[in-house]
């Protein structure tokens, strides 16, 4: 059983009285060794949350506890955290080694040990040979690694990363993702990671906190937030989704892990099977991921298939996006391309899905914030 490293209770930040809070009674438990992504669109409060944890900003209310010790109002320099800034914030008047050694100097670590640890940290990010360089001579990716080394060399209680990859080009971003993840796993540093990029979050995080309007909409593992989104916002923000308005007709039977099979009536389409958490009733939204929809040109004896017309086809090499219009509703589907003929707009197509891929959103509406 893992231990709770960071516990945030009812954390609130209001920049000015009368304004909507930037962070609104946020609660979160982070387990030791986990990498948690704070994911959300800009203005959702993710960076504010990170800055409050770092001690760079005073919360209006609530508490932050690390290792069982409350640090809500502890000054930033007494928190022992390591932070990597979006701009890296490397000290321009110091060379690489001096940058990395800074935190150790502040802790008055003996000189010899400083040297050893700086060298180890630089080796860890594979820049051991650049110690004497000036930071401005380094590439973006190298600066990123130095910033990481500087934050990690002090063996921080928490590693805080504020959009660390947003200033890198796409290719480098992929590499750094893997590298940060592997360094994090090697060092077992409990990490909070702010990002607006769902791929980054899904790829790197143990847990994702999907934030919207100062609130956490859902906190869970990447598969949970993808497969079992709690709200419309989460389903929509992470991956692509088709939303259908449905009414629960009956709970058919348990589907495991607190979930049930349901029979639902989809608006305008009729009765279908779906899954959702146990005990749901009334009107709900159904979410189906585009690639879980089966599209066939001829009706392959699937009784549940719905007939529609291909509205739009877009070809991206590996995949094919096909928009199928059924009645007044457009379904976005995604297929892997094959060598055969491509479907053309105007063709008739049949849509089907397995009941397990139609998920009933447990929370109605577009989320508590909006």
């Amino acid at each position, binding site marked *: 059983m893992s231990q709770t490293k960071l516990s945030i209770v009812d954390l609130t930040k209001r920049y000015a009285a009368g304004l909507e809070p930037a962070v609104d009674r946020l609660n979160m438990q982070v387990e030791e060794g986990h990498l948690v992504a704070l994911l959300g669109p800009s203005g959702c409060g993710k960076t504010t949350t990170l800055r409050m944890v*770092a*001690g*760079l900003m005073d919360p209006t209310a609530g508490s932050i506890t690390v290792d069982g010790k409350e640090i809500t109002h502890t*000054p*930033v*320099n*007494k*928190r*022992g*955290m*390591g*932070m990597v*800034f979006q*701009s890296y*914030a*490397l*000290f*321009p*008047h110091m060379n690489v080694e001096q940058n990395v050694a*800074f*935190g150790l100097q*502040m*802790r008055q670590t003996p000189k010899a040990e400083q040297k050893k640890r700086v060298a180890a940290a630089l080796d860890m990010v594979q820049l051991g040979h650049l110690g004497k360089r000036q930071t401005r001579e380094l590439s973006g990716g190298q600066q990123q690694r130095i910033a990481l080394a*500087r*934050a990690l060399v*002090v063996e921080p209680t928490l590693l*805080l990363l504020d959009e660390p990859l947003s200033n890198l080009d796409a290719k480098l971003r992929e590499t750094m993702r893997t590298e940060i993840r592997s360094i994090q796993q090697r060092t077992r540093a409990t990490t909070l990671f702010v990002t607006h990029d769902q791929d980054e979050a899904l790829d790197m995080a143990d847990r994702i906190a999907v934030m919207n309007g100062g609130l956490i909409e859902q906190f869970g593992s990447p598969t949970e937030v993808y497969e079992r989104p709690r709200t419309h916002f989460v389903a929509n923000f992470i991956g692509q989704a088709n939303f259908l308005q449905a009414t629960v007709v009956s709970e058919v039977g348990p589907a495991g892990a607190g979930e049930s099979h349901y029979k639902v009536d989809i608006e305008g389409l009729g009765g279908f099977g779906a899954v959702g958490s146990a005990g749901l009733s009334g009107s709900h939204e159904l979410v189906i991921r585009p690639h879980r929809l089966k599209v066939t040109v001829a009706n392959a004896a699937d009784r549940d298939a719905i007939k529609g017309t291909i509205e739009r086809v877009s070809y991206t090499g590996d995949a094919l996006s096909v928009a199928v219009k059924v009645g007044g509703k457009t379904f976005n589907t995604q297929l892997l391309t094959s060598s055969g003929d491509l479907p053309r707009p105007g063709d008739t197509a049949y849509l089907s899905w397995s009941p397990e891929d139609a998920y009933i959103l447990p929370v109605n509406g577009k989320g508590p914030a909006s």
Partner: protein
Amino acid sequence: MTTLQAPGQTPLRPAEAGELEKATEKRNRRAYLALLIPGLLGLLVSFVFPLAYMVRMSFNRGAPDGVIEETFTFDTYIQPLTDPYYWKVTLDTFQMGVTVGVLCVLVSYPVALFLARSQSKYRSLLLAIAIAPLLTSAVVRTYGWMVILGTNGLVNSSLTGLGIIDTPLKLTNNMTGVTIGLVEIFMPYAILAMISGFGRLSPQLEEAAGSLGASKFNVFTRVTLPLSLPGILTAFLLVFVLSISTFITPRLLGGGSVQVLATEIYDQTTGLLNWPFAAALSVILLVLFGLIIAVYQRLTRKIGG
């Protein structure tokens, strides 16, 4: 290399293309030079000619009552360079520049730092207030200081009124008054120079230092101060150069007892009408400027690199 070709046109042979390019380039360069001419002429008339005239003047000989003897002599230079009095005046000038520079930087730095880091919506207003004194002339402000620092001025009457001192302090008509006046008069320049020299300073760097365990004091000494050094140096140099070249304030607040190169040049020019000698002193001051700026450039290169 692929050449794009418009339909119906014969492609240029490489040689022709090269020549055409060269010709275009030449034409362009000529056009650029033509654009420079008004500026260069202005510079020539307003800067180069007067300077050349001054240098030439410095080799003439000045007879009493403003008579200028056209000649070529080094006497005007030999005299001040061999006269301990002028060495002392030069040294005093230098000392005044350094003192005013240091004090001005000290009092302006907190203001500049505050303005540079302020996120307030009133920042522009505050900046405008800080540099507003530039809208009034230095003469007016110097007169203001004469009133404030005088025997019966605000400072002395407050201090005597409060019983802190019995007899008024001599705050004006001496170097103290000149220093106070110059520091205040040059503060806006120092603030502006510093703000523009704080380019590398950013709140994130200070936050990064804090997150790495640096106390407020350490953040200041290890990050803020080193990064603001270029601004501080620029401000110091600017104030230094302005102080050693200004004559209004030393003259008005110095009460005749503050003798610096600028007042000496003024006296020689308008009081004794010895233009050649005044020109020689000006050239000496100019050389002094040159030396200081050379030192400054070496220093900034050192800090920057």
